[in-house]
């Protein structure tokens, strides 16, 4: 336990050191929001991977595979393939035509104020929902990892929240990026070590490993022992809606990643589109390697630790740390726990800076101030205040929800909004000449609303729980779900696209906007007139 605490404190000390170093370099707007656009391809690739490999992936996926085998692995696949959308379609035009936020590209040739207002609403919604999910998870996890040290859920949430606020407010994008890079390297290292130990346990024989995976023993809630083949699909996604839910999940991942604001802002930190391209490739190598290794972590936990033991000792999120404990003892448990802690901190910091940048740049400077700062440095000052407010609100909501709250749906919601609201509008802005302001506002509104409503009437919120479920973990509405799928993407993504298309076709063509489409097309494809890196 003390080892875990010491490692936690060591990570905090290092990252605060980075923040202090970054604070001296965050004196200009471009440095605060975009790290001077001087992050290199591999650095940004690692940071993108870091932003993406959240605690939900590291602990969540390992847990899903440990509990449901193959179906959990389906998440891993989608999470990598999704980067092809980022690489082929979004990253380079975004870097070429934007400045600090996703809305920069959307507002480029449309009426900026309504488009920015909707895009910012969508960005802040995605980021805060995602963040609340991470904070609740973080609080529960930190309290669990440090069990016996007297740190409660509330203390843990406040601690994590304050640290992320400090990184973002003082260190800006430079600190956030480097915290992310360090965490990603730790995470990959930990995952490689853990996978190595799992294979060592099976004498480095894939045959032995997979044979064990096909015969996983555990007990059902009613006490009967079952033996399952964990390579078989269908342990989680069952008929009648399982197949549709898997496809719907895939749609949200494949089309949502390229609309996640905290991933998109990363491409503004590199010098040019070519670097953005190579940074996606770096990210794909790391993310792919990481998610293949989740097989070893999840299947390892299922076979070596066992589902019964994990369920009794903290639940499926603890699969990876408990596996570390079983294979490497308490020191290794402390190491993996510290990595999980680092992961949480880095991801919430990335989300905070994204939400606060969108507020300062889109809402404050471009909507309220009509595109001009009234005082030098105003945008940065507003962003710092916004980071503080966003952080404080997330802390408060996480504490109110409490450690056992069922918040996994918030991550699904974030992906659904990104895929249904953000991506259609990004695509049409770049590729469809006729696209206009009404189309953008309608598309964003329809996608956002459809995602929220469908999640709300779906099984994540509406389910009848059995009487022995703890009160805080119960579903919010005790009623059979109206919409049968956990992941609304299959319906909400078409709604977002249709909203954008109808809004455009039913309103007058915007001739000035279509003229500027040529300009946007040239800029997006050539990088002419793109924001430059800041010289020393």
């Amino acid at each position, binding site marked *: 336990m003390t080892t875990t605490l010491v490692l936690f404190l060591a990570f905090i000390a290092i990252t605060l050191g980075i923040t202090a170093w970054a604070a001296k370099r965050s004196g200009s707007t471009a440095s605060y929001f975009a790290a001077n656009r001087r992050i290199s391809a591999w650095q940004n690739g690692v940071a993108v991977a870091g932003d993406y490999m959240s605690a939900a992936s590291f602990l969540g996926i390992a847990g899903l595979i440990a509990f449901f085998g*193959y179906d959990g*692995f*389906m998440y*891993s*696949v*989608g999470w*990598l*393939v999704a*980067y*092809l*959308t980022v*690489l*082929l*379609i979004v990253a380079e035009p975004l870097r070429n035509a934007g*400045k600090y936020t996703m809305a920069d590209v959307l507002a480029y040739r449309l009426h900026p104020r309504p488009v920015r207002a909707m895009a910012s609403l969508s960005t802040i919604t995605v980021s805060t929902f995602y963040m609340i999910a991470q904070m609740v998870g973080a609080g529960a996890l930190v309290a669990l990892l440090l069990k016996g040290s007297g740190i409660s859920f509330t203390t843990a949430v406040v601690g994590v929240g304050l640290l992320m606020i400090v990184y973002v407010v003082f260190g800006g994008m430079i600190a956030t990026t480097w915290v992310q890079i360090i965490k990603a390297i730790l995470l990959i290292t930990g995952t490689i070590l853990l996978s190595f130990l799992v294979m060592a346990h099976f004498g480095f024989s894939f*045959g032995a490993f*997979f*044979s064990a*995976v*096909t015969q996983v023993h555990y007990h059902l809630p009613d006490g009967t022992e079952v033996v399952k083949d964990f*390579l*078989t*699909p*269908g342990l989680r*996604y069952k008929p009648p809606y*399982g*197949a*549709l839910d*898997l*496809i719907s*999940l*895939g749609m949200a991942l*494949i089309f949502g990643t390229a609309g996640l604001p905290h991933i998109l802002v990363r491409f503004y930190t590199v010098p040019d589109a*070519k670097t953005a*391209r*190579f940074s*996606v*490739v770096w990210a*794909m*190598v790391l993310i*792919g390697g990481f*998610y*293949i290794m989740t097989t070893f972590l999840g299947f390892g936990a299922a076979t070596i630790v066992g589902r019964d033991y994990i369920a009794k000792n903290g639940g499926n999120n603890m699969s990876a740390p408990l596996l570390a404990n079983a294979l490497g003892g308490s020191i290794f448990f402390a190491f993996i726990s510290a990595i999980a802690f680092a992961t949480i901190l880095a991801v919430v910091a990335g989300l905070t800076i994204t939400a606060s940048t969108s507020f300062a740049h889109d809402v404050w400077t471009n909507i309220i101030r009509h*595109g001009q700062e009234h005082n030098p440095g105003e945008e940065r000052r507003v962003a710092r205040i916004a980071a503080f407010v966003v952080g404080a609100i997330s802390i408060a909501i996480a504490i109110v929800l409490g450690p056992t709250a069922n918040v996994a749906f918030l991550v699904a919601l974030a992906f659904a909004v990104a895929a249904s609201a953000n991506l259609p509008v990004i695509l049409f802005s770049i590729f469809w000449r006729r696209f206009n302001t009404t189309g953008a506002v309608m598309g964003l509104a329809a996608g956002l609303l459809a995602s929220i409503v469908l999640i709300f009437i779906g099984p994540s919120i509406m389910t009848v729980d059995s009487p022995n479920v703890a009160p805080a973990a119960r579903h919010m509405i005790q009623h059979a779900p109206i919409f049968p799928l956990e992941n609304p993407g299959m319906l909400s993504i078409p709604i977002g696209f249709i909203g954008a298309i109808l809004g455009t076709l039913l309103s007058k063509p915007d001739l000035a906007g279509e*003229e*500027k489409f*040529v*300009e946007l*097309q*040239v*800029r997006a*494809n*050539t*990088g*002419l*007139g793109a*924001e*430059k890196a800041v010289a020393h």
Partner: protein
Amino acid sequence: MPAPANPDPRAARQEISVWDRVAQMDDFKKLLAARKAFVIPATIFFVVYYFALPISVGYFPAFMQRKIWGPVNIAYLFALSQFLVAWLIAYLYVRAARRFDAYGETVSKDLEHIVAKGN
């Protein structure tokens, strides 16, 4: 730094005409065509290949559960192949993008030429 918004409307009009000129360049048209020729088929391919996985897992479970390599079934190998295919497409894209960059550089040079001539 971004180009500052120019209050002189004539200058603004002139700037728009520069974009139009670039849009008319052969090399720019080639750049767009080359990009389309790669990105559209590649996107269709990876989307189809990816959704083949959840669809076959969901609707053809018996086939997907067939074991073909010791205890390992088709479903798992198909899932693993997704990683290799994603990496392969990324590699092919980076290779193809060299041509896009080359066109882009010619476009910039042509543009400098125009600006230098001052017309």
